[in-house]
């Protein structure tokens, strides 16, 4: 009997060890996560491929201007009609990932497996892997909450799941802007996708419900299927590196169709002998009433023509502002020793280390004391440097308090020590010269004392190269971006936000072209980990943490606006 016990003991220990080895880094239970379910329910494990009809109807093979069955709004339709297939020659578009549920419509192989806690064998997560773009989704089953709104988005998004009887229901947030259909129909980064998975023998049926307040008038629901492969296809990777597609083309060229000038807008409808109104999509195309809507062919044609141009007053941007409004400062580690401090107007970044703290921007100043307290939790050393990316009060309002809360010992006892107020005994504030000038002109408190003009300002601080680049004629003539090179985090200031159009102040030297150039400058310094996800992280002036994809989208938007005007 002792022998039996020994064997069982060895098996248990070995099992735990193997479990620990194969567990994905991100799948380990974390603080805030509960125990996953003991009984998982339906098993979805295995290798799968999309059912063929799904490939025919819902993949990139979709025709241009084929929007039927999608309840897209006017903004989405105009977006899609402006999209030419040649957009994919733009560097950042060549390797973009797939958001869900589009993730499942690639003509490729899929693998599904589970991650279990090695100690309790409870289900921590389901993992969905797709060959195209090497999409790697984790569906947490352990009850952990979704991240805050200001956290980064990815093409996979953040997914949590629960069983409802036979059905696995998955809720995904934090998605990047991607495709509902890869013929230009966009899915915004504000979308929430709920997927229901049911297995019947060798098939999985999925119903995805996309709720997108930016581009859809009502949730889009669609069903699709996966078919189980009895053999592993042994084809799982998708190496994608972007490269020059059009030699000599400038980086501020983004192919697009101007309003009403898409030469292919009728092609699909004509070839399929259907009314253009139906092909242009909209809520009514999802339901049986479509037949009535297109019965009067002349009226339908006129309606379709009207839909191909913007109508009515300009729509207000629906981009949500994720900044917490609870009167608290929320810190989130972005990468390395660089943190985002959100909650006091414009975003604040801070890098901490053995030398002290280096801040980028100081917010409105209303919560400056809490900003000081938040930094004190990250570092016992003083705030030594503050970089202002712009003069604007929502970025510099906390200058006075944060400067006096800090100290710059590098000035103590030097020839700088008597040169300006607080030298050495307070933090040193750095900016491009014109930002200092604008602050002084507008009598804003605590303008920078340490300025530069044309060349980058650089420091090796806390063991990291930090570069401050002047961006002439972007939103003003005094903007800067800051690059923490080891953490690989770029703080973009108001040159890039996720919440609104840029405030280009032409009276203070700003320009659309300068803004586009500044965005391209940022894009020249970014590198993604895989398929436009991760790598160099960007802290915008306002909004959530991003990476290069969102900057490229912002650049594209401005180029298209410039071309239209």
């Amino acid at each position, binding site marked *: 009997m002792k022998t039996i016990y020994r064997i069982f003991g060895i098996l248990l220990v070995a099992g735990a060890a193997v479990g620990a080895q194969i567990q994905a880094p991100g799948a380990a239970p974390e603080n805030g996560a509960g125990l996953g379910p003991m009984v998982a*329910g339906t*098993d979805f494990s295995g290798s799968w491929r999309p059912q063929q*009809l799904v490939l025919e109807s819902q993949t990139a093979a979709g025709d241009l201007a084929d929007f039927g069955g999608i309840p897209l709004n006017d903004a989405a339709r105009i977006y899609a009609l402006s999209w030419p297939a040649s957009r994919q020659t733009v560097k950042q578009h060549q390797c973009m990932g797939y958001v869900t549920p589009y993730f499942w419509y690639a003509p490729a192989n899929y693998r599904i497996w589970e991650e279990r806690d090695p100690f309790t064998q409870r289900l921590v997560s389901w993992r969905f892997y797709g060959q195209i773009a090497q999409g790697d989704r984790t569906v947490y089953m352990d009850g952990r909450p979704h991240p805050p709104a200001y956290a980064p988005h990815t093409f996979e998004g953040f997914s949590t799941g629960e069983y409802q009887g036979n059905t696995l229901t998955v809720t995904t947030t934090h998605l990047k802007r991607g495709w509902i259909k890869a013929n230009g129909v966009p899915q915004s980064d504000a979308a929430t996708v709920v997927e*229901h998975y049911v297995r019947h023998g060798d098939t999985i049926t999925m119903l995805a*419900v996309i709720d997108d307040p930016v581009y859809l008038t009502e949730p889009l629901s*669609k069903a699709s*299927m996966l078919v189980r492969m009895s053999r592993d296809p042994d084809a799982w990777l998708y190496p994608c590196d972007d490269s020059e597609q059009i030699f000599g083309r400038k980086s501020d060229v983004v192919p697009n169709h101007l309003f009403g000038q898409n030469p292919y807008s009728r092609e699909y409808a004509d070839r399929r002998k259907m009314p253009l109104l139906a092909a242009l999509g909209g809520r009514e195309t999802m339901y049986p009433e479509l037949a009535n809507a297109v019965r009067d062919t002349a009226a339908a044609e006129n309606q379709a023509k009207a839909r191909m141009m913007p109508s009515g007053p300009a729509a207000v941007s629906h981009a949500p502002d994720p900044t917490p409004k609870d009167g608290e400062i929320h810190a989130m580690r972005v990468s390395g020793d660089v943190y985002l401090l959100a909650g006091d107007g414009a975003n604040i970044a801070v890098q901490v280390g053995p030398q002290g703290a280096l801040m980028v921007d100081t917010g409105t100043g209303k919560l400056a004391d809490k900003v000081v307290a938040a930094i004190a939790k990250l570092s016992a050393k003083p705030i030594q440097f503050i970089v202002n990316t712009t003069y604007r009060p929502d970025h510099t309002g906390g200058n006075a308090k944060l400067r006096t809360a800090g100290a710059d010992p590098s000035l103590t006892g030097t020839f700088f020590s008597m040169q300006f107020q607080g030298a050495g005994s307070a933090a040193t504030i750095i900016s491009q010269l014109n930002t200092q000038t604008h602050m002084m002109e507008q009598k804003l408190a605590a303008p920078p004392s340490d300025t530069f003009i044309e060349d980058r300002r650089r420091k090796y601080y806390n063991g990291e190269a930090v570069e401050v680049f002047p961006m002439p004629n972007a939103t003003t003539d005094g903007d800067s971006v800051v690059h923490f090179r080891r953490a690989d985090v770029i703080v973009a200031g108001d040159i890039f936000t996720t919440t609104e159009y840029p405030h280009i102040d032409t009276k203070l030297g700003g320009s659309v072209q300068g803004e586009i150039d500044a965005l391209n400058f940022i894009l020249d310094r970014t590198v993604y980990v895989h398929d436009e996800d991760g790598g160099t992280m960007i802290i915008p002036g306002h909004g959530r943490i991003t990476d290069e994809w969102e900057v490229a989208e912002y650049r594209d938007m401005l180029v298209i606006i410039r071309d239209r005007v």
Partner: protein
Amino acid sequence: MKRMAIAILTLAAAIEVFGQVRGGAPGAGAPAIPAGGAAQRGGPPAGGGLPGAGGGQRGGPAGGGPAGGGPPGGGAPGGALGGGRGGGARGGKAGAPFDMTGYWVSVVGEDWRWRAFPTRGDYGAVPLNQAARRIADAWDPDKDAAAGEACKAFAAPSVMRVPGRLHITWQDEQTLKIETDAGKQTRVFYFANLPENKTEDYQGSSKAEWDLGNAGAGGLFFGGGGAASAPSGSLKVITTRMKSGYATRNGVPFSNTATLTEYYDLVKEKNGVEYLILTSSLDDPTYMSQPMWTATHFKKQADATGFIPVGCDGK
């Protein structure tokens, strides 16, 4: 001591077997439709297994494989839409794990082109063979109408894909009825015996059972112990004896040897919206090289709004 261990293992195995017998056939994918109907399916309402035996059935054999819990970690289900889960089955209104009665509207979010504007020769990914291709390429709806065969495009394999509305009711305790406004068709799902001497027609003869996925079926060494699953399952319907018609609206044929296997699943969104998901597989040795799979869904309506029956001829 060894004897005691063996006795314990034997007892455990006996409990497993007992649980499976009580609960029908755990892990038996695509079980044969019992001739005796629901009353003979047996098993307690929970679908079988001993109390607490809710786990360990994952990945059991399916698709007509042998009964009993298979090795964990994903067996190799056999049939196209074979079972795959280890639940039992029970019949009729009393055994329904969900209520699918009411009015439903088809949401044409998938396969829109084929469903909304079918055109001749656009058979997409339908696995039709050469014989079927010849028929599909000659599709002429006017000719069908003139021959009184307009309802060929509203047969069981295709009518659920036509944009329209459904009215689902219980005809009696053992019979579920689906009326479609598109084509004015009626599908009848029998949980009890199929009517005898029924002639072939476009809707065929449909045998129904509840496929109770997660209920019952523990694993070796005392399955379960975790959270018990709520009653759940799918409605499985197998339709045969269909008169030859169209599998798609644009004239892809199916023969009277075809078998249509359907699963109906109901999901509910947090905002209260209910969707009925239909997974279907059309097996037709005459006209198709492999099963034709489709997934279709419907949204629940509060009332009969929009349910306007129109015949196959559009009248």
